[in-house]
């Protein structure tokens, strides 16, 4: 990936982490930028290209930092702006890019802007938020945090009015009908771009605009805002990426790419639960359907695909039947369920089954889109569903089996989140140091996987054509880019399977398995029979020699 | 004179003794043959009875209607009758052999003729028995087919078929034993045309459905009962 390539994000492997729980350099029990800087070699060694940091703004931390009280600073517990600059420089030195969070939809109710806005109806910032004398406006909008919120309106006793909030009640929504808000947000972006960040993951974009009689999601005016911000970005910078968080159906996310003049990237939310579903069903149908349903996007754009992240495994974009199925198969304990989702990490969801973990990562790295790895999943970290909210998947990184898993030198009781310490997923069993010493550990396997993925642009930029073998337990698809072709075959079943693939169009090609470089029989005119072990997968580079 | 009479008597007596001397051994042999034959015939009767019981001959005859016929004629059951027949055939055979040993020319001629007649008699009996079976089967098949096909006079049809087959069998049996040959042949020729009809109906035994359909098509005289109009299933 060239440092000068403006489309670098299309080929990047992203790594999402929380500074707070990555590495503590000061011994106060909280991760910080200096600690993160010290781990950049590890991240480089993993093979990832871009780091995505969860919010590090000053915040009352009632939503783990997504409730921002100051857009122009770093929270002191993470360090200083200088620490951030040094981190950025060190990352760039190692060829790592960095994108940060940009929470544009709302602020904390502790933000100075809101404090001013609520102080009086005549305050100049009053109109920076959405106010109403009644709570029955915008009745068509759904409640997102169902487990905690009963309404999208909250009563402000200070200004004797209701304010609009699509998320927690302590997160009032900004009013993007106000041009001043747009300008200020642009200022925020400029601030961080000038510091050197390579882009932003923009939180909660569908909800920027409200209109009566609508669902207040994905409204046309929202795109005006986004085009405005993107226009400013392009006119001042190059090679920066905006990644949209829009938890919608693919066809509803498509508008957020615009004509290449809005977001460069957007998460493909509906694919993720369907990968888990396909694995459990042992049936490729959910994956094939959602990918085939995904509309084409501009050439300069890219989907962001992932297995897990800092939020619950969202089940918003599935049917009721599918949701019930996912709950029954992956979250029998109701404590694991939150807000129409499942708050578990990858390894516990897959019962720490190495084969399934590998298969899911293999699919992540070969399906169309830029893959995003969630910190800790590369070593198979566990979770703690008994921590509140989604904190169970945001526990400290497990570096070694020693004091506080090498995360911090503080007293264990002082840690910002408790460590996972059970015999199965605890830091004594699952940690980076142990896995670095083991050739065939999950960590080393992930490194090899990412290396192989990066060896060919066909994964990041190629077209995708699904094959339809009669055996529905086998997912097979062809990635093609110019003359380069890679055949991906995955066994979604817990038992060995045979698959007959119709590869007549590829007759004459020689499949070379990409991990071991082994030759497989040449493709002929008849069905190509492959046998796969449980949860096995192959990536075949097709050579014509 | 007295001396002549005495001499003649002496001569006759000596001739008689000579004849007796010649006859007695033969007589003893004949009696031995007959006794042996009786023993063997008894064994054969037992044997035949065993075999017929094993193949359920009585049951078959009951189905063929022969049992009923025998009962009405106050004859013993078919199995016993067959066993007895076998007994008497064997015994008669030995009797004839024994008589043949005696050397009486007239009787020897009779024995030869009888020996030639018995196999034909056996075949004739077999023809009659088979004919009974076939006739009964054909009668029942025709009767049932005619009733279910709503044909007119089913009993008449069935009876006609049975009669014709019996006549055929009887004619064949009589022809075997060469009794009233000319009369039999003539009568048979006259009846032959009717037998063809019986065979056509008897075809229903093997192709009852086809026969019925043919009959239904050819003889739609009797009013249909409406069986096909009902929703039976």
């Amino acid at each position, binding site marked *: 990936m060239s440092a000068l390539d403006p489309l670098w994000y299309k080929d990047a492997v992203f790594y999402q982490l929380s500074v707070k729980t990555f590495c503590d350099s000061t011994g106060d029990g909280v991760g910080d930028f200096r600690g993160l800087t010290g781990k950049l070699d590890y991240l480089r060694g993993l093979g990832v290209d871009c780091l995505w940091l969860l919010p590090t703004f000053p915040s009352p931390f009632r939503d783990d930092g997504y409730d921002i009280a100051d857009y122009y600073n770093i929270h002191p517990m993470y360090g200083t702006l200088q620490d951030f600059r040094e981190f950025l420089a060190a990352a760039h030195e190692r060829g790592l890019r960095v994108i940060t969070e940009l929470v544009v939809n709302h602020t904390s109710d502790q933000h100075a802007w809101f404090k001013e806005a609520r102080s009086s109806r005549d305050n100049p910032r009053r109109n920076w938020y959405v106010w109403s004398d009644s709570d029955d406006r915008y009745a068509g909008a759904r409640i997102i945090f169902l487990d905690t919120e009963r309404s999208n309106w909250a009563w402000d006793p200070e200004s004797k009015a209701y304010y609009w909030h699509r998320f927690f009640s302590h997160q009032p929504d900004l009013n993007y009908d106000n041009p001043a808000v747009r300008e200020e947000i642009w200022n925020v972006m400029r601030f961080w771009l000038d510091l050197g960040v390579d882009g932003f993951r923009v939180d909660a974009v569908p909800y920027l605009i409200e209109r009566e009689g609508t669902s207040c999601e994905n409204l046309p005016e929202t795109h005006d805002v986004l085009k405005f911000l993107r226009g400013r970005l392009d006119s001042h910078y190059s090679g920066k990426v905006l990644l949209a968080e829009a938890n919608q159906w693919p066809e509803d996310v498509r508008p957020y790419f615009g004509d290449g003049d809005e977001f460069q990237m957007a998460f493909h939310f509906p694919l993720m639960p369907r990968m888990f579903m396909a694995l459990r069903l042992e049936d490729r149908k959910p994956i094939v359907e959602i990918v085939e349903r995904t509309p084409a996007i501009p050439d300069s754009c890219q989907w962001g695909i992932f297995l897990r992240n800092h939020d619950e495994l969202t089940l918003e974009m599935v049917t009721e039947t*599918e949701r019930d199925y996912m709950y029954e198969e992956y979250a029998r304990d109701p404590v694991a369920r939150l807000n129409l989702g499942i708050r578990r990490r990858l390894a516990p969801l897959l019962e720490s089954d190495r084969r399934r973990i590998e298969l899911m990562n293999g699919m992540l790295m070969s399906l169309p889109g830029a893959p995003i790895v969630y910190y800790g999943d590369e070593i198979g970290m566990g979770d703690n569903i008994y921590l509140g909210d989604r904190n169970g998947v945001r526990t400290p990184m497990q570096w070694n089996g020693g004091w506080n898993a090498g995360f911090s030198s503080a007293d264990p009781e002082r840690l910002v989140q408790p460590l996972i310490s059970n015999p199965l997923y605890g830091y004594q069993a699952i940690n980076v140091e142990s896995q670095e010493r083991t050739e065939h550990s999950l960590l080393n396997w992930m490194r090899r996987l990412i290396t192989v993925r990066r060896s060919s642009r066909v994964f990041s930029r190629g077209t995708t054509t699904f094959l339809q073998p*009669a055996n529905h337990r086998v997912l097979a698809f062809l990635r093609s880019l110019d003359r380069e072709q890679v055949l991906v075959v995955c066994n979604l079943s817990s038992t060995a399977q045979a698959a*007959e693939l119709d590869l007549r169009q590829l007759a004459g090609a020689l499949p070379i398995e990409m991990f071991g470089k082994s030759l497989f029989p040449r493709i002929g005119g008849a069905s190509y029979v492959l046998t796969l072990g449980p949860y096995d997968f192959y990536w075949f580079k097709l050579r014509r020699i | 004179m007295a001396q002549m009479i005495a001499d003649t008597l002496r001569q006759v007596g000596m001739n008689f003794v000579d004849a007796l001397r010649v006859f007695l051994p033969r007589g003893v042999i004949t009696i031995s043959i007959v006794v042996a034959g009786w023993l063997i015939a008894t064994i054969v009767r037992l044997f035949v009875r065993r075999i017929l019981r094993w193949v359920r001959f009585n049951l078959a005859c009951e189905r063929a209607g022969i049992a009923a016929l025998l009962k009405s004629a106050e004859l013993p059951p078919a199995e016993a009758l067959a066993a007895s027949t076998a007994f008497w055939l064997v015994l008669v055979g030995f009797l004839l052999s024994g008589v043949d040993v005696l050397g009486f020319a007239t009787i020897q001629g009779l024995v030869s003729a009888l020996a030639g007649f018995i196999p034909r008699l056996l075949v004739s009996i077999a023809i009659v028995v088979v004919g009974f079976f076939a006739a009964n089967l054909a009668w029942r098949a025709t009767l*049932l087919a005619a009733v279910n096909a*709503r044909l007119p006079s089913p009993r008449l049809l069935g009876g006609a078929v049975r009669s014709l087959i019996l006549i055929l069998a009887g004619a064949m049996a009589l022809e075997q034993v060469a009794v009233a040959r000319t009369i039999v042949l003539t009568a048979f020729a006259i009846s032959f045309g009717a037998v063809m009809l019986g065979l056509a109906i008897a075809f229903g035994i093997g192709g009852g*459905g086809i026969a019925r359909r043919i009959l239904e098509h050819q003889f739609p005289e009797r009013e249909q009962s*409406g*069986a096909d109009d009902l929703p039976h*299933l």
Partner: protein
Amino acid sequence: MAEDSLLPDELLHHLMAVGQVDVLVGIPTLNNAGTIADVVRAVHRAFSRYFPRDRTVLVNSDGGSTDDTPAIVRDASVEEADTLTVSHRLRTTHRISTPYHGVPGKGSALRQILAAADLTQARAVAVLDPEVTSVTPEWIAALIGPVRADQYDFVMPIYNRHPLEAMLVTQIVRPLLGAIYGWRVREPLAAEFGGSGRFVTWSLEQDVWGSELARYGIDVWITGAALSGGFRCCQAPLGPRVQTSTHTPGFQDVFQQVVGSAFACVETQAGYWVTRQTAEPLPIVGPSRGEASRPAMVDGSRLTDAFRADIRALRAVLGTILSDDTMAALDRLSSSAGPLDFPDDLWGTIVYAFLLAYHRAVMRRDHITQALAPLYLGRTGAFLLRHADADPPAVEAALESLCSRFEQLKPALVEHWNQPGQR
């Protein structure tokens, strides 16, 4: 497990791809192009609506159709919503159409379907009739549901029929089999059923598949086998049954096949019912559906008029089968004036006598069933005359009474069953 010769390579190929399933629906066909598409669609809707999480497959076993039935099965479109809805299926649905090998007839087709179910380890199997146009997704749910819930091994349908329909069932098969097997079943001749994997495996191991019974009477054999095989059986209301047949055999053929099969079935399963002394109703699972319409009535007097003449004609044959007392009663009946009044008692005695005669083979067995046909028509005619204007509950009560009578006469049958020669 299934014999290899049952499964052509093409079918094996498909089954390998299908793998294990939870639900298999089988449809035997022969020239059903006019109706099969609707049946296939109903099956797929049932899969989506009632078994969205289950691994499912539809298997069509075809007897060599010349009207493109297999192609219609394969290509019948099943509309799915363009957007993902509540009823959207989670899994791939497989649909297989394959010819069967073996003796022509439903038995071979059914055997192939059961073999496919066995190999795919199907937990629940339903078999449908391709000619029934009233089939709905709820039929499949009703047949499969109790099995899938692991409550029953065998589910028999109950159709919404007017009690004056299906006389062959109501006058002979139902009372006979109900009394003999000791289970009161509404539709012992049903072409549809639901079964468990356990029942499927056991059925394949039975010695019926190459016989004439498999060819013409597999439906009644399946019922009898389930009842006598120690399986948990129940009945499920399906609704009205509307059948569109391209080829309807004549009454005689139907009667021979049905009654002959019923008798043969009873004979082969005698080991079970000879010692069974009670008669119990089978549980009914599910709500009743729909209402039955009154069938087009046939004039019973035509049947009874023919009956009198038939008795006279068949006297000699009937005398071989029926006892003297029964014969005398029949004579009195046939010579009686006025509308024919055929008592349940006499009818039950006659049916059992014919069954005994069949068992002992007092004559050719097809002759025995042929001889019963006119008596059945007379009985049917008398029943129709008597209940022509009765309301359905009254007719049902009369049919229940008939079944009870058969049950009461059973001990006499059992007593004579193993004694040769006595009538």
